[in-house]
Each structure stands twice: as structure tokens, then as C-alpha cells.
């Protein structure tokens, strides 16, 4: 089992979510985060003081899936989230040992 973590533009969240639904992804968790990467943010003045706004809002979408679904999911995310401009974000894939559905106690692949 793998966790796919995609950090994307907030404006793309709706499209990615819908697409993943169509791809058969049953569950996902979304967090509103801020981040920096290539995209550098901007400077602003508040009452005459310059300051840097270098953490930009991003949506972090996490979904745990079976190993063989990973590639399809990654491709789907890229298809929807890509604009080609700096700031499109990243996808990380990391191992998950087990998953449990709290409602039923089911474990493993059937729980995700």
C-alpha cells in the first residue's frame, strides 16, 4: 500500500478531486497548507514595512491506495493539476504498512 501526497494549487483541487473520483479513488484527505518551492512569493508593505510573503497557499491531497493503483493516480493528478507554470506542485509516494477502517475494523487493502 502506498500513500500518494500531492501538493497542488488550491484552484486545481476541485478538478483533481473530481477526476480521482472518476478514477475510482474512494477516499482522500485534504489539508490547506502553505509552501515554497521554485515559486518564490512576493514582497508586501504593511504600514510602511516591507515583508516577504514567501509561503503560498497550496492544497495537500493525500490518498492511500494499493500499489498497483499508484501510477494511474499519479497520472490523473498530473493531468488535472498541471498548468506548466512554476508553482504546480509535487507528488510524493511513500510506503504504508497497513490501513484500518474504524467503522468495521477491516484491515489492509480492503480498508482503503
Amino acid at each position, binding site marked *: 500500500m502506498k500513500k500518494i501526497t500531492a501538493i497542488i494549487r*488550491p*484552484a486545481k483541487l476541485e478538478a483533481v478531486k473530481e477526476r480521482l473520483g472518476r478514477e475510482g479513488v474512494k477516499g482522500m484527505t485534504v489539508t*490547506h497548507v502553505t509552501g515554497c518551492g521554485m515559486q518564490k512569493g*512576493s514582497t*508586501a508593505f*504593511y504600514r510602511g514595512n516591507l515583508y516577504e*510573503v514567501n509561503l*503560498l*497557499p497550496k492544497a495537500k491531497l493525500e490518498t492511500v491506495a494499493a500499489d498497483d493503483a499508484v501510477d494511474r493516480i499519479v497520472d490523473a493528478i498530473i493531468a488535472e493539476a498541471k498548468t506548466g507554470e512554476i508553482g504546480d506542485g509535487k507528488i510524493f509516494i511513500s510506503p504504508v504498512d497497513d490501513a484500518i477502517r474504524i467503522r468495521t475494523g477491516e484491515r489492509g487493502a480492503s480498508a482503503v
Partner: protein
Amino acid sequence: MIEVAIDTIWVLLAAFLVFFMQAGFAMVEAGFTRAKNAGNIIMKNLMDFACGSLLYWAVGFALMFGVTRGGIIGSSGFFGGGLFEHLELDIPIAAFLLFQTVFAATAATIVSGAMAERTKFISYLIYSIVITAVIYPVVGHWAWGGGWLGKLGFIDFAGSTIVHSVGGWAALVGAAVLGPRLGKFNSEGKPNAIPGHNITLSALGVFILWFGWFGFNPGSTISGLNLSIAHIAVTTNLSAAAGAVLAMIVSWLRYGKPDVSLTLNGALAGLVGITAGTAAVSFFGSVVIGAGAGVLVILAVEFIEKVLHIDDPVGAVAVHGVCGAYGTVMVGLFATDGGLFYGGGMALLGVQALGVLAVAAWIMSTTFILFKVIQVTVGLRVSASEEEGGLDTGEHGMNAYADFAMRTAP
């Protein structure tokens, strides 16, 4: 002397209440739009009042209330100077100037909500200056400054048409020229919901507007000795109440649940609708007019969005434009003296309709030119990436809610 003092106090207090409506507009508009543009909305509302106060004093008041040139435009009294004896006021001209200034600012500020979330700040400033200094004073002169429309017997007691429709039609043109917000319509032209960010703030704004309207309508007697101020206050209140109740009911029937933001709009629709006839109709009349406005505003919101495909985030066109026109025409039906339903025949109704059309024509044509000129010179709309990131960052380098974690930019 005492009479003058009473009238002066009345007019000033009414002007203060109308001034406070600026806060109401700012809160309604900010609350109904997204957090990333809240600072920009505030700034537009503050600036159209500030610039407007200066320009109306310098120019607008003279064009509106100066000695008439053929019933078309006033021509004396720039910078508050000159004589205004032709107005036959008992109160000091300064009191009248203040009262008219806050009215002018009301007309101007209506537009900011309809053009919210995508207009360049500098462009909005230019619009705001031109409408307050020239466009509004001209129609104002027609109806209230000794111009041709007033002479015909047009009744627009406190400005359903002269103030609210002026703002509403300008808002319509502005929003149309500007185009919808990114993401407002999907690829098939179906509108998406873009929820406002702070409904408690909008509700506060509506309460403030309702409060201020007690200056707007009763104050328009320009006299505290005129006991019809009590009648006016009651018709104002009843119409607002009926507007809110009907909008609630209609939204409940149409969408399955009573919609908060449309009900808030309904109260405002009732207020706008009664403004023309507040002194001329009975209590019953005011309830009917308000109720009609409450229904109409929802249909108008849908029509503007779903049929015209014009994006007006706060419903300014429906509330001020449509319900302002509607309320003005209703006077022709419900005026206890001269209205069709009270045996007055069609004459008044005709004049009312003429006034509505003439004002609409003037406003739509002049503001169309204005917005087009702005568009091809300084530009009317911010860039797509600025719109996405929010105008607070883009236009003002700030963030209205710095300590809160947001779901959206910034």
C-alpha cells in the same frame, strides 16, 4: 429661527445616518465576496466616499443644484460658493450639501459590489470620480434640481431611481463590460456558486443599511417639521420587512431551504423599492411594494446570472437597479394621490415609466462609454494570476486576515 433649527437638526441627523450606510455597503460587499479581496472592497468603499465628498462639493453639487440651464444641468455654486436662493431652503446650504453628498456617495458605491473581485483599483477610482462629479448630478438635476423630469411631476421621493437605479444600472454595465470572475461560469455557461466569506459581516451590513435608511427616506423631507416623517419611517420599515419575508419564502420554495444571503438581499430590495413612494403610498401599499420587491429580487438575481450571464457577486443590479425601477413604477399604481389603483388614471404611471427609462438610458450610455474608455486606456481588469491570488495581495500588498488559516488564497 426655531423652525430652522429643527429642520437643520433633522437634515443633519439624517445625513449622518445615510453616511453610516457606507459602512453597511462595505460590510455587505466584503462579506458576500471572498476573503482574498476583502481589503480591496473596503478600500473601494472608503475611497468612493472620500473622493466623492471632495468632488461632489467641488463640482457635483453645482451641476445638480446650481441655477438650471434649460432643465438639463445646473451651472452655479462650484466649491459650495454662490447663492442657492432658487432652492428656497430654510436650512443652511451646508446642511443640504452634506445631505446631498451622502446621497451621491450612495449612488456611486453601489457599483463596487457588482464589479468586485476583478477590477483594477485605479480604474475603479476613475469611474467613481466621474460618476459622482458628473453622471449622477445630471440625473439628479433632472428630478430634484429643478430639471425637466421633476417639472413633469415625476415622483421619486428619496431616490429609488435617482440614487439606486443609477447605481444599479452603472453596476450592470460595469459588470457586463468587465466580464465574469474566473470560474464563475463553467464551460457550458452554467454558473458556479462562489460563496461569500463572512455572512455575519454581511448581515451586520444589512442591519446598518436598514438603520441608515431611516435617515435616507424620512430625511428626504428636508424638514423635521413635516410630520409625514413618521409615516415615511413606517412605510420604509414595513416594506423592508415584507421584502425580507418574501425573499425568504421564495428562496425556500425554489431551492428547498431558506437562503440567508438572498433573504438579506430581500430586505434591501424592500428598502430600495419603497424609496420612491415612501411618502406617497399607504401602509398597505408599502407592504405590497416590499413583498413584490422580495420576489422580484430573486428572479432578477437568477435572470442576470443565468440568462444574461453577467456576474454580480453581491446582487447589486437586482437590488438597486431592478428594484429601484420597479419601486418607481409602483408609485404610479399605489400613490394614494394620483396612483392608478386609487383612481388617478395612467398619467402618473406614464411619467414614472418615462423617468425610469430616461435615467436608465442616460446611465447606461454614459457609463458604457466611461468603462470602455477606461478599458482601452488604463485597463479595467486585473490579470488572471492577480485575480487568482486575490486583489488584496495584488492591488494593495496586504492580507485582510493574516492570523487565520485559509482554505483559499491567501
